[in-house]
């Protein structure tokens, strides 16, 4: 048999497609349906992450009803202080929407106590303390599973704290989809600064960076079984909107508003014909009493589905306890990523780009150690608020995907050749990152946005 006969035989053999291939589309659809709700991604406001890591002690007595609530429930005083940064959680405490837990365990000279939860259909806030005679500061890494041990998907956990021994800390578990289970197993791996008793720091020490917590092995591992009162986990209201509007030339539809005690979700859909992806939204709700519910101050602020670059669900502070009879949604702006700018070609050798996001300038491209050091600057949209200019994935000329490890943001300053001095630009910030092991002169970067839209007249949608 010669090679051509062999070739024809192989072609015949390959012509017999196995029956298992017949249902490949059906299987893909079923898989997508079952997994789509689990694979969401989350964005957090930098300020809220910071908020979790900074101990908050705010004068709760500024609010009369708040103080009254604390007076009725003296045990909630510490909790009221801990949630003072969050209007939604403060309202929950004020309305005694708190489930006491009171579980405590001691492992390896660290005591963890779960004091309270604030829970609804979609969000769980776990308040806990850590105490130790040998560690001044402890770092807890949480994970959760169902009560029967089954791993949970489709949630994010933010939190931790830098409180001294006994300070009240919080984890926030946010479910993108699916209802709150009846109970969970909380597992916490706790590391102490110093890592072992011999090198335990003095009480005067403070910890500001996670890497200061020594060792990879936790000092203690805790598990708590938490059961939620159905009174709390059933709370929530979904209002269907289905109102279309145009924003930045894009046709969007506000599909529904979900109102929970801990937050409000505004869900949107885009149109197939849209030329840009919605990345962020400027919005608020207002009730008939003039109460405004702004973008949420803690935890997740927006989510998107895994199969689209669009962010399609946005969070607001909760109106749940305001007993609002009427609610109106105001959309005043947006951040968009034009679809033709998902990748932009950047000529590194000549410091030029085919396109850049609005307000962004290409400051520097320096060949260094087999790669490039890049610097871009952007303008502040809010005072001193940095934002991401480019996603970390980038592509070479052959379309091969690479990633840079991280970027730094600093106040922008530029070298003035005439004066031979640095010039500070107070209205701008600079983002620097490295393309390591990148010998080429051209790179394709992926902007995080392309333009910012500010509406003269807000989009107004009646919610109820």
């Amino acid at each position, binding site marked *: 048999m010669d090679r051509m006969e062999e*070739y024809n035989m192989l072609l015949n053999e390959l012509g017999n497609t196995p029956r298992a291939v017949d249902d490949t*589309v059906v299987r*893909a659809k079923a898989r997508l349906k079952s997994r789509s709700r689990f694979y969401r991604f989350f964005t957090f406001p930098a300020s809220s992450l910071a908020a979790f890591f900074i101990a908050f002690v705010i004068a709760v007595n500024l609010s009369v009803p708040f103080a009254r609530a604390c007076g009725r429930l003296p045990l909630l005083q510490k909790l009221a202080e801990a949630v003072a940064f969050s209007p939604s959680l403060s309202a929950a405490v004020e309305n005694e929407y708190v489930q006491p837990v009171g579980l405590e365990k001691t492992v390896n000279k660290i005591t963890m106590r779960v004091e309270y939860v604030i829970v609804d259909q979609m969000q769980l806030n776990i308040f806990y303390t850590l105490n130790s005679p040998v560690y001044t500061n402890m770092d807890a890494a949480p994970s959760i599973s169902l009560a029967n041990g089954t791993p949970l998907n489709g949630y994010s956990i933010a939190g931790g704290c830098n409180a001294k021994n006994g300070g009240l800390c919080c984890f926030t578990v946010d479910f993108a989809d699916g209802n709150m289970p009846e109970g969970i197993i909380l597992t916490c791996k706790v590391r102490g600064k110093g890592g072992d008793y011999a090198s335990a720091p003095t009480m005067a020490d403070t910890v500001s960076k996670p890497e200061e917590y020594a060792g990879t092995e936790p000092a203690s591992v805790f598990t708590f079984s938490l059961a939620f009162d159905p009174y709390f986990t059933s709370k929530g209201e979904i209002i269907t909107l289905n109102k279309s509007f145009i924003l930045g030339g894009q046709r969007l539809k506000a599909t529904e508003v979900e109102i929970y005690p801990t937050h409000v979700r505004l869900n949107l859909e885009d149109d197939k014909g849209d030329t840009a992806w919605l990345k962020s939204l400027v919005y608020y709700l207002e009730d008939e009493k003039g109460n405004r519910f702004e973008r949420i101050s803690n935890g997740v602020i927006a989510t998107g589905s895994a199969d689209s670059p669009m962010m399609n669900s946005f969070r607001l502070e909760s109106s749940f306890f305001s007993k609002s009879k009427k609610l109106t949604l105001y959309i005043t702006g947006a951040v968009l990523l034009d679809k033709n700018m998902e990748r932009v070609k950047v000529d590194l050798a000549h410091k030029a780009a085919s396109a850049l996001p609005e307000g962004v300038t290409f400051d520097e491209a320096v060949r260094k150690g087999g790669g490039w050091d890049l610097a871009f600057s952007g303008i502040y949209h809010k005072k001193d608020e940095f934002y991401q200019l480019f996603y970390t994935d980038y592509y070479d000329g052959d379309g091969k995907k690479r990633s840079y490890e991280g970027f730094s943001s600093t106040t922008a300053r530029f070298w003035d050749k005439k004066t031979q001095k640095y010039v500070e630009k107070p209205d701008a910030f600079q983002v620097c990152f490295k393309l390591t092991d990148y010998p080429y002169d051209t790179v394709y970067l992926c902007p995080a946005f392309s333009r910012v839209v500010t509406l003269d007249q807000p989009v107004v949608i009646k919610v109820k």
Partner: protein
Amino acid sequence: MDENEFAARTERLKARLYRIAFLYLGSENMAVDAVDEAVYRGLKALKKLRRPEYFDTWMTRILINECKKELRRRKREQPLDVLPETAAEEFDPLPLREAVRRLPPQLREVVILRYFAGYTLAQAAESLGIPQGTAVTRQRRALSILKLEICEEA
């Protein structure tokens, strides 16, 4: 493109996808798994497909990526000797299927797409993200190593 159109176009394409995966991976089960994974990933990423006319080459790229991923994984577990282009005589005693699998990756992928999946030169080049001239050079080299004399299309 909506899900129904995706399903219809994938139905027409699936036999080709299977042939490609089979030649890459050399096993029916693994080929079916790779096609399943590629179809799932294609469906999930459907909104990113800006030009439906490139659906076939887009799906093929996804499949090739899945096959390469599997090959990388297997390489770690049980390395397969890929023969260098210069070792033409070592290809002679190998059955054609095995010889194709032992081709250097860049030659193998062109040959699979062109002569086993029935892609045109332009489609093969598009699927692999290479210029047509490069595809021509690679396919000539591959055919020469495999001792296959297949008439070129116009």
